[in-house]
């Protein structure tokens, strides 16, 4: 544990956080642009060329907004909730590798923050505690719509977490390791998405539900719950929720890419490790596009249908998939 | 088992009747009478086939074989398995039980058909055959047991079945509970005997540490004589209960309350011989205890004489046979008591044939009488309904109307009386010979009994079949269908030929049983004893002819014998007042004791203690109730206090 190592970690952490927050800003723009294109509009184009400064403008606007706290709200938790929402989103990608190793300033630097042998478990742990922020935000607002939104989010996330977990187990079984680096490396011959399309599909659907993205964005269904758990939020606190949502989008895209789409792997990556982050970036961008595309095309599904789908279709399917995978692995791999 | 796979069939002797009874129990309702009878008879018949196969196998391999079926009891060192013993003795018993049993089953299908017609309730038909098969099962367990405990299971099983079957017409009899009472009596008296057997088994286990025959017999010679005496005497108590010997014979005459096939199966051919079998089986123990042997012999001889005298004074056709059975069992017990095990077993076999025959034929007579009664009632006055179809005073002259029955009855009676070429002659003679060689006193008793035997059988023959009909029912009696007569004929043939089992000079049975009872002394054929017994039998018959056939005996007239004997006949008619004696000496004081215990002791003392305890605990509970306030937290607090106290104890001890 020498000083340089700690310094390296600190730098990598800061870099990761910066990338994520910066990514958040530009994913919003990305989404608005893509949505606009799909809806045959132009989208933001005033601030800067092609509207590239639009996120900056939005940020500045939100910072100067007035912070409203409802009179009967539980103030402490009301303030804590947005933070609790962002933190898991930020730390979840700590175990996702961006590449193998590059040599920089005469020092071999591993292009990941941590390669722990329980990385997938870590992902699940972080996913499971990311519910708190939303649930508490809904409850502490002392607003029935917000509370309902929070409760819905809780129920929904608990339900889909199981399917998500089972979907994530499949690559673990294929790779024989819980380390994401190992999983990515074992996709060298073929991406898991081709071997396990069902698992990827389940992962994708469950992850969408987990981050409350359309068509599973019931907790914030405007028509019935005004804006769900963040009805009462404004200013920077609202921005934090917004941020969390988009960071989570990036996170699940990264995790999904690593688990199923080969992560940083691509042509010539062994010869030129610096290509790794680039490949990962491209894959994340494509996944993000799909997410936005789904939002633009699919209607929101009804809440009871959502729960039924989660418990009666997705969960058994995921379970079955794990079972079949296990059997096949034993038969084939010995 | 080496090389003799037939031996492993032995569990099937038990399984087949079990299957039969289960089938009848489960689907019997739908099968109807024919099906039920068929299944029951088939189950018993197949068991007989298995026994025959076993006998064939034993011919080539005469040593005893133990076939373990399952682990039964394993407690510490003690290990007892449910095992079957195949040796000549047990297979002989199996053959008798299943063979005679099958014939009686066949007979019963016909007999019970009439019974259902007479007594209603067709449900009973099935129940009867379920009990019958159950009885066969229990009896086979008894004889095939490899240890005393399993034998005891069978022993109790036959006791239970006899209770069920004696009380089969439980709603009939005196006051509507007479039959139930008879069944109860049989059960309770048997229980007294069982108690003796149980103590014997306890003593065996206590001293030998095992209950398996081989294990015990191997150590028998080393055991203390006093102990062996105790064991054998307690066992004798069991024998007197099950085999209806003095002083516990009183249940058997009452047991005639059951249907006639029951009497034939249980109280003549099989169950009552269990005691004889037990003594024969335990022969290595008895041989070590001469005093016990002597006791057994005397008990048997006295019983033989007593029962024979009582039989003379009875009017009920089945009662006569019942006392005759007791008497003949006395012969067998006396035989095994004197060490003449083969003779006892021989008599057991022949007796099974002719006594079953006699009972079944008596049943045939009763059925014929019932027919006649019905017929008479249709034509004539309805008042003759109270007529007892079993009372010999109502019969007479049946030989013309029931030819087959008459002939087979004659064969059975002559066999029982011990007339020369028939089965009974040889077996009884062997017992007499043994008695003559060993204990002349017993020989005298037995020869007197034999005389009485011939006399009462003659009396019965003349009363039932000869002379003129003494009632309308007897006039109209008619022969029974083949299903009833065919088993009778078969049994009659067996009664005639049964002596061939152990003809003097050939000794088939003796050589056969030798394998199981090798240590017993041989009995020589003594010509003049045989002649004497034959002479005595002929004399008895002749005397009976003198008394009964010369004059017509009108209805309800006094017995001609009573005129010659006077008060003695009254005593005999009243069975020497033994039942009354038991009533006065045992039952009544016992009842008074029970009443005393019930009233002052139980109500006053025991209930007082119980109620006192109740009210004390109630008042304590009233105080404790305050802690039960329904608050979960205070319960939890109580637990914590307890834990804290225990911890303090652990800490400061």
């Amino acid at each position: 544990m020498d000083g340089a190592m700690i310094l390296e970690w600190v730098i990598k952490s800061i870099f990761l956080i910066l990338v994520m927050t910066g990514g958040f800003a530009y994913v919003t723009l990305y989404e608005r642009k893509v949505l606009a294109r799909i809806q045959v509009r132009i989208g933001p184009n005033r601030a800067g060329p092609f509207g590239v400064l639009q996120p900056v403008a939005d940020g500045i606007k939100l910072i100067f907004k007035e912070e409203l706290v409802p009179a009967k709200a539980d103030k402490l938790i009301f303030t804590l909730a947005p933070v609790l929402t962002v933190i898991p989103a930020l730390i979840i990608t700590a175990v996702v590798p961006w590449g193998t190793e590059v040599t920089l300033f005469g020092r071999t630097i591993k292009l990941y923050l941590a390669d722990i042998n329980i990385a997938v478990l870590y992902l699940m742990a972080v996913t499971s505690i990311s519910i708190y922020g939303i649930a508490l935000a809904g409850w502490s607002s002392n607003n029935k719509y917000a509370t309902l939104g929070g409760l819905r989010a809780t129920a929904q996330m608990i339900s889909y977490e199981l399917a998500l977990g089972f979907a994530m187990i499949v690559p673990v079984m294929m790779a024989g390791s819980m380390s994401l680096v190992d999983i990515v490396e074992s996709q060298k011959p073929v991406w898991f998405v081709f071997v396990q399309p069902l698992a990827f599909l389940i992962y994708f659907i469950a992850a969408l539900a987990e981050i409350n993205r359309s068509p599973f964005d019931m907790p914030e269904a405007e028509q019935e719950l005004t804006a769900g758990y963040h009805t009462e939020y404004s200013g920077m606190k609202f921005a934090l929720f917004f941020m969390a949502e988009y960071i989570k989008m990036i996170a699940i895209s990264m995790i999904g890419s690593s688990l199923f789409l080969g992560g940083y792997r691509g042509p010539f990556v062994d010869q030129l490790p610096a290509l790794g982050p680039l490949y990962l970036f491209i894959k994340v961008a494509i996944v993000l596009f799909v997410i936005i595309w789904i939002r633009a095309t699919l209607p929101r599904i009804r809440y009871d249908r959502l729960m039924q789908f989660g418990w009666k279709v997705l969960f058994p399917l995921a379970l079955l998939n794990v079972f079949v995978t296990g059997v096949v692995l034993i038969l084939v791999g010995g | 088992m080496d090389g003799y796979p037939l031996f492993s069939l032995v569990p099937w002797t038990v399984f087949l009747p079990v299957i039969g009874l289960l089938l009848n129990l489960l689907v019997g309702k739908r099968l109807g009478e024919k099906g039920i009878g068929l299944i029951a008879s088939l189950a018993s018949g197949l068991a007989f086939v298995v026994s025959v196969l076993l006998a064939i196998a034993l011919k080539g391999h005469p040593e005893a074989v133990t076939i373990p079926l399952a682990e039964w009891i394993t407690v510490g060192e003690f290990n007892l398995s449910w095992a079957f013993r195949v040796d000549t003795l047990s297979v002989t018993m199996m053959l008798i039980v299943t063979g005679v049993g099958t014939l009686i089953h066949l007979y019963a299908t016909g007999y019970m058909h009439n019974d259902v017609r007479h007594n209603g309730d067709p449900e009973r038909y099935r129940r009867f055959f379920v009990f019958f098969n159950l009885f066969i099962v229990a009896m086979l367990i008894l004889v095939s047991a490899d240890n005393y405990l399993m034998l005891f299971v069978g022993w109790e099983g036959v006791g239970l079945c006899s209770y069920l079957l004696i009380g089969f017409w439980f709603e009939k009899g005196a006051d509507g509970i007479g039959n139930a009472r008879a069944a109860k009596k049989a059960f309770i008296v048997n229980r007294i005997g069982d108690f003796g057997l149980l103590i014997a088994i306890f003593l065996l286990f206590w001293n030998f540490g095992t209950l398996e025959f081989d294990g015990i017999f191997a150590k028998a010679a080393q055991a203390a004589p006093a102990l062996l005496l105790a064991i054998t005497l307690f066992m004798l108590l069991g024998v007197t209960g099950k085999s209806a010997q003095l002083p516990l014979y009183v249940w058997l005459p009452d047991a005639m309350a059951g249907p006639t096939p029951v009497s034939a199966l249980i109280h003549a051919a099989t169950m009552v011989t269990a005691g004889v079998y037990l003594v024969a089986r335990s022969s290595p123990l008895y041989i070590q205890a001469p005093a016990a042997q002597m006791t057994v012999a005397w008990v048997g001889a006295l019983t033989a004489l007593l029962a024979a005298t009582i039989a003379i004074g009875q009017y009920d056709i089945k009662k006569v046979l019942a006392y005759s059975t007791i008497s003949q069992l006395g012969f067998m017990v006396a035989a095994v008591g004197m060490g003449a095990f083969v003779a006892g077993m021989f008599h057991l076999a022949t007796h099974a044939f002719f006594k079953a025959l006699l009972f079944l034929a008596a049943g045939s007579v009763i059925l014929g009488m019932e027919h006649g009664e019905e017929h008479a009632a249709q034509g004539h006055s309805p008042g003759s309904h109270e007529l007892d179809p079993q009372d010999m005073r109502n019969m007479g002259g049946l030989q013309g109307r029931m030819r087959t029955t008459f002939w087979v009855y004659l064969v059975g009676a002559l066999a029982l009386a011990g007339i020369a070429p028939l089965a009974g002659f040889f077996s009884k003679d062997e017992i007499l010979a043994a008695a003559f060689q060993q204990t002349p006193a017993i020989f005298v008793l037995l020869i007197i009994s034999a005389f009485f035997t011939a006399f009462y059988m003659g009396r019965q023959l003349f009363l039932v079949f000869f002379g003129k009909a003494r009632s309308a029912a007897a006039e109209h009696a008619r022969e029974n269908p083949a299903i009833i007569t065919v088993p009778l004929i078969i049994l009659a043939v067996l009664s005639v030929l049964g002596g061939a089992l152990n003809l003097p000079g050939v000794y088939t049975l003796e050589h056969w049983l030798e394998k199981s009872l090798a240590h017993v002394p041989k009995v020589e054929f003594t010509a003049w004893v045989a002649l004497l017994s034959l002479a005595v039998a002929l004399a008895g018959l002749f005397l009976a002819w003198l008394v009964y056939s010369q004059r017509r005996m009108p209805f309800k007239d006094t017995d001609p014998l009573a005129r010659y004997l006077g008060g003695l006949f009254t005593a005999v008619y009243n069975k020497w007042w033994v039942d009354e004696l038991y009533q006065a000496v045992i039952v009544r004081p016992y009842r008074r004791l029970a009443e005393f215990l019930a009233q002052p002791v139980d109500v006053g003392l025991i209930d007082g203690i119980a109620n006192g305890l109740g009210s004390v605990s109630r008042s304590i509970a009233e105080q404790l109730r305050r802690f039960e306030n329904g608050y979960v937290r205070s319960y939890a607090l109580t637990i914590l206090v307890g834990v804290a106290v225990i911890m303090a104890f652990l800490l400061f001890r």
Partner: protein
Amino acid sequence: MLTTGTIIFGVFALVVIASALGMLLSRNAIYAALFLVLNFATVAVLYLILGAPFIALVQITVYAGSIMVLFLFVIMLLGAEKLPAGEPLGHHRWIALLFGLVFLAELALFLVYRAGMRAAVNTPPLEFGSPAAVGMSLFQKYALPFEITGFILVVATVGAILLTRGEGFKGRKRTLEIQSQDK
């Protein structure tokens, strides 16, 4: 002796104790639940220190992530965060506190007098509590308990569904009745 390890442990132990007491003392059930979550998370860190990474993350996933979320959910659903004041059992509180302290003292005495193992816990090798090691022993040596646990989980699931389902059936029937009345 203050080593780095001890200091780290001290900090986390303080958090553990503080959050336990916070749960104990907070009037609001939501706060109690949150304190407990904090407690669990900190204990998970202690597990990491003790070389049990698998258990640590399971602790977070199961306890902090599922069980406590469920608690929070039920509290919010029932609106049961606050109860009216008032104590029906008069002396109960003081007796409970007294015996709680007695119990604590006893346990502490045990620790002091009966412990007899003043050895430090060494952080075990990394493979010790790894998922592979845990999995191997779980599916080989402890396969039967594992299956039984699975069975218990299924039973509990069925039980929970059955317990909370009753109203749903009635409700559905009622709507059906209303619909049939409409027609």
